[in-house]
């Protein structure tokens, strides 16, 4: 419940504050968001599996974000930023889908 409230609070804060993304963060924010989404779904699945752990959730969340941003950064430095961003999004998307499938099986037995 607190998680849902937190999500709502975050969205509202974003809408109210309307911050501008610093220029140097702009390439990394979308990837970081996708990575965080992946961590969120992973956490949800772990919770349904009964193996949720806040420490792991925190670590996974942060490391996902950092690693995703790092990959994009490296890609930018190597001149393949766009392709690598796509790769990261694809991988994270697959993970999100599989996690969602697992959650679905937990909830709907199908």
């Amino acid at each position, binding site marked *: 419940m*607190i*998680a849902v409230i937190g999500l709502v609070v975050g969205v509202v804060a974003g809408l109210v504050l309307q911050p501008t993304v610093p220029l140097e963060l702009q390439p990394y*924010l979308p990837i970081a968001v996708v990575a965080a989404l992946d961590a969120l779904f992973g956490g949800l699945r*772990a919770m*349904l599996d*009964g193996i949720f752990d806040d420490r792991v959730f925190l670590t996974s969340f942060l490391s996902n974000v950092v690693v995703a941003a790092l990959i994009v950064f490296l890609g930018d430095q190597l001149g393949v930023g766009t392709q690598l961003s796509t790769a990261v999004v694809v991988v994270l998307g697959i993970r999100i889908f*599989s996690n969602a499938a*697992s959650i679905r099986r937990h909830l709907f037995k199908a």
Partner: protein
Amino acid sequence: MLPGEDLDPLPDGDAAPAEESVVPAVPDPEGATEDEVAAEDDVPAEVPAPAPDDAGPAEPVAAEARSGWAALGSALRFRGSRAQVLAGLLCAVLGFALVVQVRQNDEASLADLSQADLVRILDETTTRGDALATEVNGLRRERDQLVSGSDKRQAALDALRRSAETQGILAGRLPAQGPGVVVRLTEPNGQITPATMLNMLEELRNSGAEAIDLNGSRVTASSAFAGIPGAVTLDDERLSPPYVWTVIGDPDTIATALQIPGGALAAVRSNGGEGDVQRRDKVEVTSVRVLDAPKYATPVPASDG
């Protein structure tokens, strides 16, 4: 909630035919990835009590049957535990970043577009700019026409006003003033005939008289003399001597014209009258004549040529 369990077990997804959490509990069937390897450590501990939060049934399959919604429900229950606060915090961060990124994306930057799109956009913008420039030119031309049109209209109004004044004076509709002469005719030895008066009027007109008054009556183009000597009438009004002509025009021309031998004043003298011409710098013709609107005549419509 078992500590140490990885959040992201192997993303096997739909590929796993066996049921749910039992499968990750037995790590061997799938190709081992890092996630799964990490998961291996804790899995054995989990197997006996797969859902500790659920006041767990001992049997894994039975727990599986109701663990989904029950786990979700228990997770949604409001507790101040560290895990929930942490999850809420991270979710807040996620929501914030999500909204920020979405908003940022709405302000879609051109940098993300492909070259073809950029060319297309540039093309569209140029075309649009050209169209707007054309429209600006058209509107500016129209405005100029309207401005000069109103100027023309004003000029036409001024011309009409001047024309109306001129014609008002000539037609006897308006009082007038200006240089001119005053001619005073007396009848000491006889009576002036209407023909003599007409002759006098014609002479005045010939010499350029612009406004003529005779004994307080405006003499116009439609004026007519009638009657008999001694009882001259002007437009059916009887005149009585002395006859005083008040004339606006070039005083020298008129005076000279009247004095011509065999002219108007000579005719007056031949009728036994006396004529006296005074040149004035300023005379006033205050009498006016009210004109009826034309009954039959209408202006010819102006043709645009």
